[in-house]
């Protein structure tokens, strides 16, 4: 199996995530797009691990760390989103512009 096709899949998922972060208005949908980007990095790490045939499985261990950090990120992110919703009655990221010049 070609390594480059798996990496291209990861690159595609990352680009779709970039589009979602830039184009979505709802903060929860922005968080979903960030999950897409983190997951594409995991695909890259697993593919490189399978290609490298590392006996210590370093790629998989880093993928596990990324999954853990993603869980922490989505927990704190949703707490912030809930707090913004409680204070401003909206989670549209372009209406939360108090600090905007």
């Amino acid at each position, binding site marked *: 199996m070609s390594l480059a096709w798996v990496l291209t899949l990861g690159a595609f998922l990352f680009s779709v*995530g970039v589009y979602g972060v830039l184009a979505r208005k709802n903060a929860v949908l922005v968080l979903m797009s960030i999950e897409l980007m983190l997951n594409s990095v995991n695909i890259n790490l697993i593919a490189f691990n399978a290609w490298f045939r590392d006996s210590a499985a370093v790629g998989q261990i880093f993928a596990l760390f990324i999954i853990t950090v993603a869980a922490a990120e989505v927990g704190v992110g949703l707490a912030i989103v809930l707090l913004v919703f409680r204070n401003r009655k909206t989670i549209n990221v372009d209406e939360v512009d108090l600090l905007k010049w």
Partner: protein
Amino acid sequence: MSWPAVFVAIFGAVAAISAVAVVLSRNVVHAALSLVVVLGAAGAIFLVLGAEFVGWTQILIYVGAIVVLLLFGLMLTAAPIGKHALDNQQRGVAFLTSAAVFGVFTFIIWRSFGSQRIHLNQVVRTSDIGRSLFSGYILPFEVVSVLLLAALVGAIVLAKKD
């Protein structure tokens, strides 16, 4: 074309189509459910590539916990269920940016790794992961556990009504 390559191609196509559905869907709940399909297909790819433990962890944590958390977030914030404007006015710029990112990545990937092949002749078992994790990577492991604790406390403090 070998059987693992066929499976990776099928699951990759499913993941790519569902990822596009996540960012283009007009319904927030449909977007979350498409995210489930993307993460499940990625977990299946991990299994095919010989990453047993990471594949099942992916299914367990992403599909089981993170998407449920995101759906909770959608419901608690009274997200507009139905046809509402979910996108801002930057769709053109966003598309150009992501297309440029994809183009650059693809160019670099194919120029650097275009001729490399993956030979699947070993499955990394959970015991291998555990041995590696608790010998060479014990410090990052502990740091990540402290990070999870900090995120837990931080989320409770933020979301608590005072």
